[in-house]
């Protein structure tokens, strides 16, 4: 892959991506495209973005060699990109900082966001507080129940959390509702999408803001081991942490890119969220991508132990990377993810988010089959504090 300059000017990654929205949003997206194009070329904007990342988020995040765990697995060496150490506890803040700065440039005083597990909601509420903006977060009512702590965090940060009762009452419905809010309040409102999905320019813009993760790794890995890793592994729900770490490596063809989807109770069970592994192309939430859908084109309900991966679509760039085979996509079940979660807790003293535990679990599967001088770089996209209740419930423990 000598050249990679996707998306095209209308947001297409091959047949994927694009702007599949009602006319009512066309103008708002055009404005956003223009504002983002101007800002990304403006050194003052990028300087401000990186200043915030350094002083407010705490970047760069370190790369950590998980020696004990690697030794025990007896194969390739595993390195963890510690996005869990960011302010608010996950990679999500990289993107919300970028978009909040953009919203401010566009003169928008109100931001809205959708959230599943609540991490993007918290990251949005955080930057809204930081920049003095009004913030409304849409969250499926099922997720509101599952993630009560994050709901409270958002409220503490001054956001209004709106439970969404329509459809399956989860992340996809929260996204629908946020879109409806945006259509209605388009003049004063900026919609912060939390992942590399949605209509153009979101998949590109979120990827660009998140690619700070991979850019840092490109510097850090040679410092640590004298070269780039042999493989980069990240979990994929919508796919923002994965695009963030993959993107700067796309041109290095010798570096394997491995996305790990949520297999839930197993792909055969039908209760999973593995859109790339088990889905088919279609149109949802403003872009064409792989979707979990039935024969009538209705979006099906998904399942994963990790709310952040519980989404029936995936970013269109991942769809393209899959079709072109530049990236490989695999899946990890709830059970395997929980095992990876426990291993990392006990062997390395790091409590990963259940989302990230999927990437961790796949690394543990892959490492023993590879020689000891190989290096696997895993994006530890978030920390697991938010998941205490879920994990305790699964283990039959009352907190």
């Amino acid at each position, binding site marked *: 892959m000598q050249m990679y300059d996707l998306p095209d000017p*209308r947001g297409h990654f091959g047949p994927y991506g*694009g*702007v*599949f*929205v*009602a*006319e*009512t949003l*066309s*103008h*708002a997206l*055009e404005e956003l495209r223009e504002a983002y194009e101007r800002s990304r070329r403006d050194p003052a904007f990028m300087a401000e973005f990186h200043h915030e990342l350094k002083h407010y988020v705490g970047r760069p995040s370190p790369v950590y060699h998980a020696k004990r765990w690697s030794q025990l697995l007896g194969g390739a060496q595993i390195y963890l990109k510690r996005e869990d150490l960011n302010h608010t506890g996950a990679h999500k803040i990289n993107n919300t900082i970028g978009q909040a700065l953009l919203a401010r440039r566009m003169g928008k005083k109100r931001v809205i966001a959708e959230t599943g597990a609540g991490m993007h909601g918290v990251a949005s509420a955080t930057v809204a507080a930081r920049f003095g903006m009004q913030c409304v977060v849409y969250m499926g009512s099922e997720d509101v129940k599952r993630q009560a702590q994050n709901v409270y965090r958002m409220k503490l940060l001054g956001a209004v959390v709106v439970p969404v009762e*329509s*459809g399956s009452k989860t992340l*996809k*419905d929260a996204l*629908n509702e946020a*879109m*409806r809010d945006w*259509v*209605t*309040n*388009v*003049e004063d409102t900026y919609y912060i999408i939390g992942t590399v999905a949605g209509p153009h320019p979101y998949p590109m813009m979120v990827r660009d803001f998140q690619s700070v993760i991979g850019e840092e790794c490109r510097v850090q890995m040679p410092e640590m081991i004298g070269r780039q890793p042999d493989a980069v592994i990240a979990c994929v729900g919508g796919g923002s942490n994965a695009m963030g770490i993959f993107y700067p490596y796309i041109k290095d063809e010798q570096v394997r890119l491995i996305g790990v989807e949520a297999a839930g109770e197993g792909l055969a069970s039908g209760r999973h969220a593995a859109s790339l592994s088990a889905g*088919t*192309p*279609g*149109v*949802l*939430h*403003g872009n064409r991508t792989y*979707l979990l*859908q039935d*024969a*009538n*084109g*209705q*979006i099906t309900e998904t399942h994963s132990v990790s709310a952040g991966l519980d989404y029936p679509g995936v970013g269109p760039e991942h769809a393209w990377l899959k079709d072109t085979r530049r990236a490989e996509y695999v899946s990890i079940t709830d059970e395997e993810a929980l095992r990876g979660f426990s291993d990392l807790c006990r062997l390395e003293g790091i409590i990963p988010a259940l989302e990230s535990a999927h990437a961790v679990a796949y690394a543990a599967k892959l490492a023993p089959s590879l020689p000891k001088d190989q290096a696997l770089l895993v994006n530890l996209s978030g920390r697991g504090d938010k998941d205490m209740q879920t994990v305790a419930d699964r283990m039959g423990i009352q907190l």
Partner: protein
Amino acid sequence: MSRIAGRFAELKAAGRKALVPFLTAGDPLPASTVPLLHAMVEAGSDILEIGVPFSDPMADGPAIQRSSERALKNGVGLADVLKMVSQFRQQDAKTPVVLMGYANPIEAMGVGKFVAAAKSAGVDGVIVVDYPPEECGPFADLCGRAHIDCIFLLAPTSTDARIREVARAGTGYLYYVSLKGVTGVKSADVAEIAAQLPRLRAASDLPIGVGFGIKDAESARAIARVADAVIIGTRIVQEIESAGPAEAPARVKALLAPIRAALDQPPAKAA
């Protein structure tokens, strides 16, 4: 001439405006839809818009979302909707039928297969909410070859350049969404709409239908002064929801009759 163009030509000749009701297919029951469509025609409707249920109706407000959920619970998909249109056509060969919905059910069926099936069922036009002109070239070409009109939306936020682009791609009529927002939440502001329509007229000779926010005879009549067609969706879907399957056809007729009468009333003489 397509059935839609023919209908607008007749109306124009008679100095009348089109009444265009909407319902969601399969709501409240699959068997309700065809009788409801006939009831709408009996109440003086000119063109029928039939909503294809979708799991994620992003551009719709709560009432139409609920109707979509009820239809999906009844297992109604795009193929069933096409069967309903065929069934309707057995008794009504004249009234134009437009399908309105989202892209994914069409893509799941296959664009070519859909256009062929829609043609043979007797569909005259399609409104695919999340297919703007720039994303549906091949689909629009297929529809054009099958003489199915591709009807596009325009909004208060559409720029003049955008209006020209959409007007070039559209056939049948232009659907002007009179409000910012989703279906059925606010009321239409007639003065604002009247101020916007000349921008559309300047770009296109197509008839203009206005929808979103029209709830009763009074608002319909006011809109009809400036538009060629009055599109009523949410209000009807609400009526169907509250009436239940048995009463729905009669209640919808009772809702539409005074609107039809108001549209046909001669304009009040200027004082």
